[in-house]
């Protein structure tokens, strides 16, 4: 009996040096402690804490599909999409308050994924993820996003919407100043800018400028600089990108 206790004690003394998991995690690893299953939100939080954005995305998408009226998850999913697109939300918040950038492309450059080393398809996929981020927030009821909304998630949702609109506009603009085949900046790409592209970019900038949030000011000044050309949206934007 004493030997058993001694063995048990020695095992106890040795175990702290090995393993980092919690005894309470499922599936159970110890007969002494029942495992504690995580709720969906706890699983999401763990994935976010571990920066496992793919898992967080899957969990959030499933959770929203199951409970579409749980609006608090929408801004979180939107942020996850943006993170998957390579967008650093924290960095842009720091930049917006300290930067003297006058152009949205300048302001965003440091925080958006660089097209360098990326194929056009990969870059398009990241733009699409930012589009998913925008769509997710736009799926919320208008009253939820209204300025007067008292919901604790509303301010975050509104701010994120403006940021992602500005970011996506910036990424679209990059498409027309960068040659993915040579992997270098190329102003000649501006020639591929269509009226439809211009309308999309101007629409995003306009929404970002009027929606409030940390990028509103810089989106508005960028719009003003583009519109100073006095021509069509396409021509104005082409001039702006070429300058």
């Amino acid at each position, binding site marked *: 009996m004493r030997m058993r206790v001694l063995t048990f004690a020695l095992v106890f003394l040795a175990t702290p040096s090995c393993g980092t998991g919690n005894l309470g995690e499922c599936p159970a690893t110890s007969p002494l402690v029942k495992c504690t299953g995580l709720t969906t939100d706890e699983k999401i939080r763990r994935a976010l804490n571990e920066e496992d954005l793919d898992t967080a995305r899957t969990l959030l998408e499933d959770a929203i599909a199951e409970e579409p009226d749980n609006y608090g998850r929408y801004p979180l999913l939107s942020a996850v999409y943006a993170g998957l697109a390579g967008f650093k939300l924290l960095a842009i*918040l720091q930049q917006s308050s300290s930067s003297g950038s006058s152009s949205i492309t300048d302001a965003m450059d440091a925080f958006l994924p660089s097209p360098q080393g990326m194929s056009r398809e990969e870059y398009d996929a990241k733009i699409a993820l930012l589009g998913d981020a925008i769509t997710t927030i736009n799926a919320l009821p208008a009253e939820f996003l209204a300025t007067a909304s008292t919901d604790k998630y509303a301010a975050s949702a509104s701010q994120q919407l403006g940021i992602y609109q500005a970011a996506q506009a910036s990424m679209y603009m990059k498409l027309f100043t960068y040659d993915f085949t040579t992997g270098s900046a190329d102003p000649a790409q501006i020639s591929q800018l269509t009226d439809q592209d211009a309308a999309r970019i101007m629409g995003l900038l306009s929404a970002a400028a009027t929606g409030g949030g940390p990028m509103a000011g810089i989106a508005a000044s960028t719009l003003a600089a583009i519109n100073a050309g006095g021509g069509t949206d396409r021509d104005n934007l082409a001039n702006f990108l070429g300058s």
Partner: protein
Amino acid sequence: MDPAWSIAAIISLGGFTTGGTAIARDLSPIYEETFDIAAGGASLTRATRYGVALANPALLPVSGSFHRWLGSEFALHINKESVDYAKTLLPGSSSGSSDSGDSSAFVDHVFQSPFLAGTQTSLAYLNAYGGIGFFSRFEVDLEAQEYGPTGMPAVILNGKSYSGGTLSGAGKIPFTPFSLGVTGKYLMLAEPGAAIDVADPNAVAQFQDPAALSALVTPSTGTGFDIGALMFIQGPRVDWRLALKVDDVGGTRLNGGDAIDDFKQVTSIGAAMTLHTGKDALHVSVDKRDLQNAYDTPPFKATRAGVKLTLRGYAGIAAGWYDGYPSAGAELDLIFLQIGVATYRREITGAPGVNPRNVYVMNMAAGF
């Protein structure tokens, strides 16, 4: 205002608001000794120094001597990541000392790793029949999340400020292996907490008024008492112990200050076996806390288990399972000076594996 500076201001002002619920109220005694933590927090059947009064006052009569403890104590808790960060601030480190005093560097650190720090002090006299003690414990946990609760970057602040006094009485029941003990407590508590969306100027602004901040951490006060019972069967080589403890009998109501939750009555049991020679002892113990599930405690937090090995009465090593994670530590008793260290992991929420902290504890006690 730059969010980084806002966070720095919050930290430097020690400001919080109420309402944070990230830290689950744990079931550890409100004051816990380093060596007991090292042994997994399984302290119902054996506790250290002043920890006896709060772990289980029925332990007081079982030591065999009248005098138990007279002295004071100081302990520092800090999480591993913050120790690593602090090292970078030391002169001669690879990062150099240029970051010293740079709050934005600290904020950068917080956005990479959580920060946990705490202190606890006590002054107590205990003997086999009771004792009196005073304690103070302060702890702050600061975590920045790039994806906060609302999706935007957020700083999660949680604190515990516990202080108070205890008066204990205990005695053996004649001709039985049982002893009983009771500890009355006067408590001053604050449990400030907040989740601050750093992109929300309104949320940040409220932390820039020191007067408002100090009002937010006004402590609540309350009185309550714990009752403990112990069955102690002593043998020439092996001792057996069974403990029953009721914390906060009838609930401890807290008044004033920020309306924090009252302490609920919690019933716990513990069992232990001690192998011993005349000088050395190996104590193996298991506690099961919150039998009535008053706090909806998950099993990994309710189960505490550990081993204490004491050698010649001057040195001890301990290991165990605390909050479902391994813990370990050692203590050296230099007659009038006791020095201890421990390491353990604590789960901040009630969900296993979601938000743990690796904590180091250093302890120094002066007394005998």
